[in-house]
């Protein structure tokens, strides 16, 4: 068995951001699908109120997070790359079943594997604008008349765009949660996201040692 090293991957704010965002997004889904009429829990009115409040809370969180991303330079973690994407796909499609080594090694400068980067960029560039754009139109329906939008955009389109975005988020959520189990133990990634520390199987230094 290789010796393992611990690397500090997720800083305190990052972890706070991730988990509070998780709670808020889950709550958005729970209340959103109730508003959509899928089931009954809080009641329509409460669900709408919670949904709205949670949206504002998320936006506040993101205001801080965007600031944090830029001041720390961490935003670079989200620059997409196609480099070794196929290796990742092969790994998830085959390697993972036969205990092949993970093709990607996390470092504090590269926390996300290439597939992850693509997924996050898609989320940021496609799903987010769709869901937030439509959400704002929905929320500020009262002002459509003043803005001359009444009649220009059917509310049904806005609602459908928003619903489509919600299904995408739900799908992302399911896959995202599942992929947390793909660490060296099923809970390893979760633990890292909680503590910030990643246990890395010490291959690189070991190789180095043997090389040296």
């Amino acid at each position, binding site marked *: 068995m290789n010796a393992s090293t611990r690397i500090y991957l997720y800083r*305190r704010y990052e972890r706070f951001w991730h988990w509070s965002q998780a709670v808020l997004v889950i709550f958005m889904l729970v209340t959103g699908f109730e508003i959509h009429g899928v089931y009954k829990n809080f009641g329509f*009115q409460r669900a*709408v*109120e919670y949904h709205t409040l949670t949206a504002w809370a998320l936006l506040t969180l993101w205001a801080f997070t965007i600031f944090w991303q830029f001041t720390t330079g961490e935003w670079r973690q989200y620059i997409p790359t196609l480099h070794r994407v196929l290796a990742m796909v092969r790994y998830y499609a085959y390697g993972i079943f036969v205990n092949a080594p993970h093709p990607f090694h996390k470092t504090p400068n590269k926390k996300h594997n290439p597939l992850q980067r693509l997924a996050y960029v898609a989320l940021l560039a496609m799903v987010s604008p769709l869901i937030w754009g439509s959400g704002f139109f929905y929320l500020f329906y009262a002002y459509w008349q003043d803005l001359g939008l009444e009649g220009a955009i059917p*509310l*049904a389109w806005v609602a459908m765009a928003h*619903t489509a975005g919600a299904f995408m988020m739900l799908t992302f959520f*399911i896959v995202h949660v599942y992929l947390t189990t793909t660490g060296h133990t099923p809970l390893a990634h979760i633990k890292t996201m909680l503590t910030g520390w990643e246990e890395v199987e010490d291959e690189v230094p070991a190789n180095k040692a043997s090389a040296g």
Partner: protein
Amino acid sequence: MSQTKLLFAASLLGAVLAWSTAWGEVPGAARPANLAVPSGSAIPLGESTVDHSKLKELQKNFASGPEVTKACLSCHTEAAKQVQHTKHWTWEYTDPKSGQKLGKKNIINNFCTTSISNEKDCMACHAGYGWKDANFDFTAEANVDCLICHDSTATYRKLPGDAGHPVYERREFPHGSGKFVEAVDLQKVAQSVALPSRSNCGSCHFYGAGGDGTKHGDLDSALKKPGKYLDVHMDAKGLNFTCSTCHATAGHKVSGSRYEMAAALTGPAETRGKAAASPAACQSCHGDKPHKESILHAERLNTHSNKLACQTCHIPQYARDSIGTEISWDWSTATRMGTDGKPFLVKDSAGRRAFDSKKGNFVWDSYVVPEYRWFNGHVSYKTKGERIDPGQIVEINRPEGEAGQADSRIWPFKIHRGKQAYDSENNYLVVVHTAGEDDTALWANFDWQKAIGAGMQTAGMRYSGKFGFVSTEMSWPITHMVAPKNDALGCAQCHRENGRLEGITGIYLPGRDHSYLLDNIGWMVVLLSLLGVLIHGGTRAYLHFKHKG
């Protein structure tokens, strides 16, 4: 150590959510709107500058209503002329849009059907004396009835059969009931006149179609002294509005009309002194955006007024009392006799008329949930002589308006359904001579042929001699019995499937409407991804344990 921090972060998040709950407690927390109470509301007698009992003109014995009117007019010189210009007098209204002659004088309704040939009974609710047939003199000022609106003694009654005259001699009413109506003391009534109270207006408007609560559904005698629950404005212990507080009246012209409704008034509350286009509308006092909303609601509640009438949410049910209202009148069973061959009556479990050999079958209900329609304030009528399709339900009147029109709102309606006689050759509704003591009156002789023949002749209409019964319905906009705000409809009453607005088309209603295609695709994708990760994870687990084993 980092676990403590995490706990801290979690509790912070919890606090945010708890705060949201607390915020949610006061949806659209609105303080009572500032109501400018018009000065004319509920003036006690003591506020008048005249004590009518001191007037010489009124200190004499009056033999009849017209004599009292002459005395009134000796001071109030223009009063009769004013009244004669109102619908209370003419019973006529010309629809400016269609040119149709409407009003009680002309239309066939869904209840007693028509006043034509039945004036002696119907005119118990005419603000005049002596209208018993088409020869009534509409210019005679002495025929104006001042007292029906201005009596403050509650002893002035007009009964069917007297063509609008009050009860001059003590009389049993209803006939054969053992109850007696006392002769009116006209001198006393004349000396104590006052501004109209709820009871004055109610003496006709509560009893339309011949019984308490029968016609409107949102008007019945419980409004003489209502609690807050029944009517937040008329609440006898609260605001205590009279009818004319909202139906502001000048020169005997009462504002507000079913024939020309302001269905979609916009803008802020009207300033006192400003000429009001429609003082009887809610918006006159409240404006069209009356809800005080937190930023969380983003004016969502107020925006509803672009699509809904105030009444739609604020009158969750009508006939909210044990009096109830008639929701159906089936004339086709009229003239059916009892086993003894004599006319008979049946009452429902609440003591309301269920069958009468003179009139047919009735259905009553209380606490009725309205039906909802788009409405722009204009109502088109099926007028006398207009062709009908007997294969369809005949809409006696039809509220116009549709989604997307700036002047249309979703309104609550009482829909009164029934069956009534029509000429089955000419395909139009017939005029039936119902009331009267003569041989042809339906209620005297129980002979449809004769009654229709006489009615049609009086109306100057051709009758083929063949009649049948056709299903009809009539729509009554609901606007009275406004509930306290806590009893207003909640969001989910409409924002769900099979809610109150299920039948309303032309809008996307969140919670009710979906794109089934989008939903199906969405759930399919979600399901497939779930299935995918389960298979992926299951395979991993299986191989892992197989490897170990």
